[in-house]
């Protein structure tokens, strides 16, 4: 590719090169301005950001469907390979669980009696929205996901995101028809937690790796591998007791927590409104939206009889 340039062409090329140089300088300056604006948390940056994500969500939604199919295929193959080992493991687990089932049913009855005797006010049933994961943003700096539900579906900033019973993160940004989740493994994620057995409080901090670590451990840190980590009520962000994972190692750098649910397993997530502040400063606490009752609520009488003079018409 040898260019046959005359003098005029060369001059033109040099002018273009000059323009290019200036374009690059301008763009560099623009990039730094944008970074500063992001750092300053200017409102319109976030608004334009969610607008762009909103625009891309239909495309991502469409593209992610075949990706899911492929993933399912590979999962089937992996399952087939591990069939024998899995079967043996399940048999052993089943035996253990049968034993636990008898204990659990006895405890449930006992618990019900005790609750009645103590007149315990039951926790309200949370409202939830189920959304599909359409984007998994793989990067060392950010662990986020985009789901195909947004403000029009009732998603609010700061709400808890669960997979099954397990907490996986919170809603960080909300567009009209999309929302961005910040996962617990994100380098910016900080969450008050406790060790289920000993009630030791700590802060679960992500650092971009698969396993977040426990920091700021309060009191007597007697943490062992296998301890279960659940949310604590500190900060009134989420209700206490939501499972997160187990302590996997106490090597250097502090106890590392293996999440119960891994990022690649997430296909549908539940965005749950507990009516609490969520993981937000109190100043930003959103107005509680109209609660949407889940279809399969019905865990006991939800305190209807205890309201004195409740207007029933």
């Amino acid at each position, binding site marked *: 590719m040898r260019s046959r340039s005359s003098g005029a062409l060369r001059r033109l090329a040099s002018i273009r090169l000059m323009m290019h140089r200036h374009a690059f300088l301008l763009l560099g300056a623009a990039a730094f301005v*944008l*970074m500063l604006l992001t750092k300053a948390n200017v409102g319109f940056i976030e608004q334009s950001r969610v607008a762009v994500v909103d625009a891309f969500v239909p495309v991502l939604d469409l593209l992610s469907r075949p990706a899911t199919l492929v993933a399912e295929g590979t999962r089937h193959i992996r399952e087939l390979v591990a069939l024998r080992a899995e079967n043996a493991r399940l048999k052993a687990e089943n035996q253990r669980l049968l034993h636990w089932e008898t204990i659990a049913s006895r405890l449930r009855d006992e618990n019900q009696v005790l609750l009645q005797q103590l007149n315990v006010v039951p926790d309200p049933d949370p409202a939830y929205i189920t959304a599909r994961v359409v984007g998994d943003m793989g990067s060392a700096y950010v662990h986020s996901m985009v789901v195909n539900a947004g403000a029009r579906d009732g998603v609010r900033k700061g709400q808890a995101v669960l997979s099954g019973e397990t907490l996986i993160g919170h809603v960080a940004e909300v567009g009209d028809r999309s929302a961005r989740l910040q996962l617990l493994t994100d380098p910016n994620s900080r969450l008050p937690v406790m060790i289920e057995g000993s009630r030791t409080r700590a802060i679960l901090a992500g650092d971009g790796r698969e396993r977040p670590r426990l920091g700021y451990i309060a009191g007597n840190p007697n943490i062992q591998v296998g301890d279960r980590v659940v949310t604590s009520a500190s900060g009134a962000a989420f209700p206490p007791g939501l499972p997160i994972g187990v302590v996997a190692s106490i090597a250097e750098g502090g106890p590392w927590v293996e999440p119960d649910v891994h990022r690649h397993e997430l296909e549908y997530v539940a965005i749950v409104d507990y009516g609490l502040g969520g993981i937000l400063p109190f100043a930003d606490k959103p107005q509680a939206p109209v609660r949407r009752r889940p279809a399969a609520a019905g865990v006991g009488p939800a305190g209807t009889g205890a309201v004195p003079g409740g207007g029933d018409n």
Partner: protein
Amino acid sequence: MDLWLRHIMPFGMTLGLLLLTCLPVHIPGLSGVMPMLPLMSVYYWALFRPDLLPVGTAFAIGLTNDILVGMPLGVNALVLASVQRLATTQRRFFLARSFLASWLAFALLAAGAVGLGWLLMEMMAEHPVGLLQMALAYLATLGLFPAATQMMARAQMAFLKDV
């Protein structure tokens, strides 16, 4: 119309590769170490058809990347614009004689891009990130370079041979 469509192919391809890296892949361990496909695409087109992927376009693609991934705006934009600029101005260096040499040249450039991104993020964020993840993503990008270059060369021959 046909010419116009052919001419936006490099841009469309880069954007498509960007969206591809944003899809949930459901493969254990892959999320977080996705190869930097847009980087390769910007590099390739900056070398072979800089007229169709100018520095402004590279900037726009980087900005879209920042927005979709949820990173501070401007980081990937500056990285991709720099890659485009470096590739177009130092064309002679990157168009090496053997494939191995051009692979090495790309490895240098990608290392510079990763380093620049890391530097910008360190300036922005207060929390350090796992260097291992970044190294893995970098190696994945290098590993995919021959295949990706092949694909883009095919696309160039098919769509842009004489336009």
